[in-house]
């Protein structure tokens, strides 16, 4: 079964037929496994990894370190939820170390990020402080190298 999801994770456009051939598991079984994974939210969504800059679109990202006061009974969960509900918060992680939450914020302009951090994030009651790092360049995301990925330089015919 792991094979099904390993194949899908690499290429979400594979059809159940293809996956069945690749794994030797019947098409019906493959469909069933995928459906169940979707229902269990083991598969959350199918998406493309896009290099927006190549499409001429602007996107500004920032990694925001957030220090918070954990709350009784709910720990960090309640404040994390308050933050991740903002659509600007693309990813939210609880991290060990000198700060608590790592938030990746995505906006169209730097100004929008500044406004989001200063007017939405920082004023939250449980938030003690934030440190904002603007992302200057994307090298690799979700396992994909953006530029200068590796091309295999093989001879076309070899014994």
């Amino acid at each position, binding site marked *: 079964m792991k094979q099904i999801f390993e194949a899908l994770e690499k290429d979400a456009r594979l059809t159940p037929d293809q996956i069945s051939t690749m794994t030797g598991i019947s098409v019906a079984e493959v469909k069933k496994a995928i459906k169940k994974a979707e229902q269990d939210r083991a598969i959350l969504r199918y998406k493309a990894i896009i290099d927006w800059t190549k499409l001429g679109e602007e996107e500004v990202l920032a990694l925001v370190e957030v220090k918070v006061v954990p709350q009784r009974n709910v720990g960090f969960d309640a404040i994390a939820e308050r933050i991740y509900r903002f659509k600007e918060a693309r990813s939210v992680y609880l991290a060990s170390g000198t700060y608590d939450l790592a938030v990746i914020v995505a906006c169209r302009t730097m100004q929008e990020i500044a406004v989001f951090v200063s007017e939405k994030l920082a004023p939250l009651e449980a938030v003690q402080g934030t440190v904002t790092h603007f992302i200057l360049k994307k090298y690799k995301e979700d396992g994909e190298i953006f530029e200068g990925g590796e091309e295999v330089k093989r001879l*076309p015919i070899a014994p």
Partner: protein
Amino acid sequence: MSRSEPVNSRLSKKCLSDKVVALPPSGIRKFFDLLSSMEGVISLGVGEPDFVTPWYIREAAIYSLEKGYTMYTSNKGTPELRAELAKYLNSHYSLVYNPDDEILITVGVSEGLDLAARAILNPGDEVIMPDPCYVAYPAAISLAGGIPVRVPTTEDNDFEITAADIESRITPKTKAILIGYPCNPTGAVLTRDELERIADVVKRHHLLVISDEIYCQLVYGVEHTCLASLPGMRDRTILLNGFSKAYAMTGWRIGYAACGKEIIGAMTKIHQYTIMCASIMGQMAALEALKSNDREVDVMVRDYDRRRRIIVKGFRDIGLSCFEPKGAFYAFPSIKVTGMSSEEFAEKLLMEEKVAVVPGTAFGDCGEGYVRCCYATSLPEIEEALKRMARFIDKHRKK
């Protein structure tokens, strides 16, 4: 100005070694030349992984350069690499080799094969090997003064060489058998049972075995049995292996040979005068490959397996019978439905549909009627190649 070529060809008969002149040219050279002048070709003719060497291995090699590891190593290879190999062979196959004198680091399995042949053969000694088999086997034996004796293997028998077939070809001149399973070009593997029967024949007739196990980690749904690990076989088996295929390290040229110290000693003698030692950077990289866990190798193997299933089903769907390969990264479909020879098929396919495959005859007469297709290439390329081949088969199917 006259060109020097005619002079060379006039001289050639006299100035070249008879042994070399008698060697047939490689069956794939022609395609290589054709291919280099074409564009838009999908090549299933490669013989190596489409992965680049995992970064942790490359990084270790870079670090070794930074630290100044640029010298010769001991003839036998670095003590660290030999020690790690001894550990590896012990943990994987319960084999015990003394890293001091029973393991030799070579420049790929190719060198190991050459050394093994030269170390054990006297002129006229016969070496039994399957047909089809890797292109270098008969050549290495001939160059060492031996005589290759080919045992036909067929699709009906899953391209396995059998103990009975081997035994029927044993003569007083037989010195050794040379096998390489998982097999290039067929992708066949040998079952443990068959290997046991072969081991039995080898012991009864006091033969040696040169066992090329370079594809041992690339097996699908079966377990590889190391011939040397069978009872009584350690000192009769010259185990050849290396890092090229499993770790995607073909260009690093690091292989190894393991056997009793008598034979390894003899091989080391030739190696020290001809090669001196394998490159130190490659040995450093190989050491890192062995020391790390095989997680990246496992990922690659599962990836090959998925593509293997796609290509085999693909061939069958377009009407080519295709034996199910259980190892390496080759499929060996039969092209007999076209009535063409393997070479004709490969050439026409390349010219008409721009798909490169290797004619089975490059690997021996028994490869006639088959072509070798490597599936270590991207899925979209495999699917496009299958599409083009379907068109080609439809057009050329024997009426």
